[in-house]
């Protein structure tokens, strides 16, 4: 029996003027898998993530989450449906404490964010859940720190934590290891290996060592088109991929 994809991308296209950022892309993401998206800068990887998460409207094509066509849903609707993402440049609420960032995301997940009366800071369920989530990324000791005082690596961890708080069906990570040192990268790799069981991961990453350590499947983009898709061995041996991307890496 054929596996059913959690995410299905059907002939997705997006242009910025004359530049085709994504050109008739087709992509599937299955349960328990980490699918890495690689390619040179400007190949359309982040554009694709923005379209999947609803931050950018596609020109044509469809996006399905567990068979539901979400192509016209707003970003916030998609988030509530379980599409959780991290941003290429850490995007957290810097003026909030770490735990308040999580309170915010738990609130968004559950709805009721327009309630003007309940005291969110006294919601014990949210506090407990926030601490449980922070444990996963080893940030409990910084729960009450202002995010603006966190290191780059800790902000990255917090972003992952925020994505996890959304009860994700799908995780979109846009260069989560950018700027991290070796130890932190290894921590992320170990973490992602555990997370993929909870929700499949679409991973954009330039660090090929991490990609090969993590990805079950790799797709390569160039000028907005998919030029190859396969496992590590297939990608490494693909001549076109060697020419446009991996040539410099290996």
């Amino acid at each position, binding site marked *: 029996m054929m596996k059913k994809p959690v995410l299905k991308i059907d002939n997705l296209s997006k242009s910025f003027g004359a530049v085709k950022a994504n050109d008739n892309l087709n992509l599937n993401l299955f349960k328990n898998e980490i699918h890495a998206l690689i390619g040179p800068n400007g190949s359309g990887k982040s554009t694709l993530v923005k379209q999947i*998460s*609803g*931050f950018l409207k596609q020109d044509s094509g469809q996006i399905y989450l567990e068979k539901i066509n979400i192509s016209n849903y*707003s*970003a*916030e*609707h998609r*988030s*509530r449906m379980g599409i*959780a*993402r991290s*941003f290429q440049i850490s*995007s*957290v*609420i*810097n*003026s*909030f*404490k770490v735990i*308040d960032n999580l*309170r*915010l*995301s738990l*609130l*968004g*997940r559950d*709805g*009721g*964010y*327009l*309630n*003007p*009366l*309940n*005291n*969110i*800071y006294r919601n014990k369920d949210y506090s407990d859940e926030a601490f449980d989530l922070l444990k996963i990324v080893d940030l409990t000791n910084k729960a009450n720190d*202002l995010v*603006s005082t966190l290191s780059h690596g800790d902000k990255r961890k917090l972003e992952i934590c*925020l994505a996890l*708080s*959304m009860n994700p069906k799908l995780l979109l990570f846009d260069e989560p290891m950018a700027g991290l040192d070796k130890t932190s990268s290894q921590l992320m790799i170990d973490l992602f290996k555990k997370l993929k069981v909870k929700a499949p991961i679409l991973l954009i990453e330039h660090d090929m060592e991490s990609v090969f350590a993590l990805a079950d499947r790799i797709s390569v983009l160039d000028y907005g088109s998919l030029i190859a898709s396969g496992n590590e061995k297939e990608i490494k041996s693909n001549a076109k991929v060697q020419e446009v991307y991996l040539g410099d890496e290996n």
Partner: protein
Amino acid sequence: MSEKKLNFLILISLFFVPLFSILLNDIYITTLFSKIIILAIAGIGLNLILGYGGMVSFGHAAFFGLGGYVTGILAFHFNNYEPIQILVFEFEGTNQLLFVWIFTLIFSSLLALFIGYFSLRTTGVYFIMITLAFAQMLYYFSISWPTYGGEDGLSLSLRNEIPFLNTMDPITFFYICYVWLIIAIIFVKFILNSPLGISLKASKENEDRVRSVGINPKKVKLISFIISGAITGLAGSLYADLNRFVSPTILSWQMSGEIMILVILGGMFRLYGPILGAFFYIILEQFLGGITENWQFWLGFIILLEVLYAKAGIMSFLIKDKYDEKTSS
């Protein structure tokens, strides 16, 4: 001094203003402080969206003025026994403050819903301009509406009433305003600690993050805008009763500017900032106004200094735990 202590001191000091007024045998002080409290309520309304939501509304006079006109029009029709006609509906006028306040809250909320719905499609300078434009539309409309006095405004022969209270007594009216100030503070404090409040503060800083956790920042801002408009409208209603007069002046852009200035002067991002701002604004107006006709020039100079050297407002001078915009809760 800690912020909590200062806040407490502000409220206690205000509470005893009528007593000082009696001791000094100058009841005008009480009336002056009624005005300060009313402007502070308007400022608290604006501060919710300006300080905590980052929405620079330059049209809050629309709500302040609407509150004033709702109060004035209801009293006007009560006095001449003519019903108010809105489309096919007819309403009797009233001089009962409880009803006046309810009408004011309803109408200013509806106006805020209308203005907010369109204005929040824009951001930055466009948001400033569109809120200003809406307020100016109402201003010119009020000028050209002879039924309610046009340019000359509308006089209320007596203040509206509350059963068992003599609202014409300056001290009674002062405490009515004082109670509303307390209600406004408590309500906004609740909001700031609520899901709406945390979503508003987050939307101010990072809309993408807010959307990525399933929150619609436009809805958050619109609801906050409506609450802000309602609070400011209520202040306008009290202002009309205080002066027993409403005129297009309270719908003008100068009024919007005045409310914004007192928020900035006292300190945005702090709940009690607008109270101090209103206090200093009115005192400067009285004090400098007695010295020179061009008192607004010197007020401008003071605000210039403040914006350059103390962005957190007067509150930041008086408290020990200096303002830190990076503090969330």
